[in-house]
């Protein structure tokens, strides 16, 4: 008896991806398109081991909705995901033994579809297990662990993505740290300006519309245009005050990047500060005033804590957005993972683009999960 349409749909999607799309692609060099290699062809050389977990995932839709079965599906998804990653790496190694040294084996669309289908089934199952937020994060990390182990072990070294990494290990690490640095450096002014701005909009009704229209307009300015607008005034400033120039403030590099990213980040943050304060129950505030709390006491003892969950949700959105936006920092010489991505775009090297984009996505997912945990902790008794 069919019990679950979502799982059936995901499993069917995975099967369709595996059947119709190439699993890996083997190209004579980095620029040319690869020859597609089907899932079946890869399976033939030693990949039959993953058929066990694959079978569990396929019948998952018919399994009873009880904990032991759900745990079985979770385990199968984890093993299966690690399995296809290993399989892709093994096949790349096999092709490398026979092909020319500049030939490249890339992960192809079928691989990503199957991986995504399995990951979604895993997420769905973890959701159904109704774990606490913390346990869900631990489970997510646990599921990623085998794949991380494969990456570290070097078993995937013949995949083009890992070759791109190996060719510019130093550059990658620097770019990653730079990326994080820019995001963190953006959050300081964003918080310093966004929180008071959001409070102002919430306390003074007359300010609300103007504050948010301005921030909305800022949001619509393309980043390149914003960099262009900032270039001259900042360069002039650095010339006029050489001390600023010496600490790195100028028309290019970090200063315009952080200013631009801050301007983009202000809207989601300030909006959520306003929404968070709006959401503090009016009767609680009336009771607080009625018992003789000063407005400062109300803010620090009451509003701050009740506004925290929505504020943290806003901060989560803001950070995740900033992680993505920081990619454009590369366009103005501030570095970060965008530099790798744009290098890949210029060179038409898709795997290099992936090397820049994947960590951005993973970072965003990690921050998202971590912040959600914080939100749920903050919201425990604020219901």
């Amino acid at each position: 008896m069919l019990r679950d349409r979502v799982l059936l749909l995901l499993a069917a999607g995975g099967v369709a991806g595996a059947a119709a799309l190439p699993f890996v692609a083997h190209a004579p060099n980095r620029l040319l398109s690869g020859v597609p290699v089907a899932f079946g062809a890869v399976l033939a050389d030693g990949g039959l081991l993953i058929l066990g977990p694959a079978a569990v995932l396929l019948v998952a839709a018919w399994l009873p909705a009880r904990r032991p079965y759900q745990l079985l599906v979770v385990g199968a998804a984890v093993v299966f995901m690690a399995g296809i990653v290993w399989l892709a790496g093994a096949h790349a190694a096999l092709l490398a033994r026979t092909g020319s040294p500049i030939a490249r084996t890339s992960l192809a669309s079928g691989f990503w579809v199957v991986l995504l289908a399995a990951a979604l089934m895993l997420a769905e199952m973890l959701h159904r297990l109704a774990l606490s937020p913390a346990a869900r994060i631990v489970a997510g990390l646990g599921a990623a662990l085998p794949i991380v182990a494969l990456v570290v072990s070097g078993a995937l070294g013949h995949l083009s993505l890992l070759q791109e990494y190996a060719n510019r290990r130093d550059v990658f690490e620097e770019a990653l740290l730079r990326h994080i640095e820019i995001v963190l450096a953006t959050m300081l002014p964003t918080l310093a300006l966004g929180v008071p701005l959001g409070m102002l909009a919430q306390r003074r009704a007359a300010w609300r519309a103007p504050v948010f229209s301005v921030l909305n307009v800022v949001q619509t300015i393309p980043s390149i245009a914003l960099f262009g607008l900032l270039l001259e005034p900042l360069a002039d400033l650095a010339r006029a005050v050489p001390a600023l120039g010496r600490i790195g403030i100028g028309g290019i590099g970090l200063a315009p990047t952080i200013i631009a990213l801050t301007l983009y980040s202000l809207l989601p943050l300030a909006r959520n500060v306003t929404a968070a304060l709006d959401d503090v129950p009016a009767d609680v505030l009336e009771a607080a005033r009625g018992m003789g709390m000063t407005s400062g006491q109300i803010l620090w003892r009451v509003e701050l804590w009740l506004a925290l969950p929505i504020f943290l949700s806003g901060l989560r959105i803001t950070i995740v957005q900033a992680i993505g936006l920081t990619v454009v920092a590369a366009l103005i010489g501030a570095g970060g993972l965008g530099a790798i991505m744009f290098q890949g775009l210029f060179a038409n090297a898709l795997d290099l683009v992936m090397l820049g984009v994947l960590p951005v996505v993973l970072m965003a997912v990690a921050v998202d999960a971590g912040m959600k945990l914080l939100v749920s902790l903050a919201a425990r008794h604020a219901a």
Partner: protein
Amino acid sequence: MISFDSVSKNFGGANVVDRLSFTVEAGEFAVLIGPSGSGKSTTLKMINRLIDRDAGVIRFDGQDVQAVAVEALRRRMGYVIQSGGLFPNWTVERNIAAVPSLLRWSRARIAERVEALLHLLRLDEEGCRGRYPHQLSGGQQQRVGVARALAADPDVLLMDEPFGALDPITREALQVEIARIHAETGKTIVFVTHDMQEALKLASRIVILDHGRLVQVGTPIELLTAPANDFVREFVGQDDPGGRLLAIETVAQRVRAGEVAPGPPIAASATLRQALSAMIVRHEDRIGVADPAGRPIGTLYLADIVRR
């Protein structure tokens, strides 16, 4: 204790409170009542200055409330609102300790006071102490609200329709509770409601308002027996004035001490309405009366109920 002298409040051109004058004596249980829009809540909130008056003088303990620092004024008045307004992220204990900690009482003194209030409101026996508001029933939340308002031992308790959102059974239980607390503590209480039954049951004095103006001030019996006008007559309920009188007075007020009657006795604290109801069910014209410990103390006769 509290006096209004020709107090007015204007919202958007209309007087919601209009030249209002009345006095609440120390220890009184004053109930402000009126239809919606009568200005009763506004009147209450002008006492602790959640709303500032526009004209006239409000005195608290002989002093113009406008002349006192507003936070200090409020800390001398307990305030209870309809929805409780408990801090959802604080435990019951911490909610009750709110005002004492604002007043920087010592830790030991706060603990002692919280203990006493948990006991007074019967919250300790229900294990509410360490719980969060969302883990409590509506009645429990409201009792915590009352405990919090009483925490710093204020001179008066201001209550804005405190039981308006509760189901009838819980409401009745809390009415008994607040009457008991009033009797035990002797606090001055100013209580807003739109429920005349509640007003007649609790009040030592009722202030009837309509369109911001004072219509009549009096004890429940005065209002029932000598309404100032048709508005009051209609408002206190013309359909069943006798029944309402019966609901106010207690058996203890009319019992003949010493006599013993057969059958299960009724509590001295029961209303005459309850006693009459019991007699009708039993088809008898008298009923035994017992003290809270269950000991017989006398008999109530049907004739005593109708006596003036």
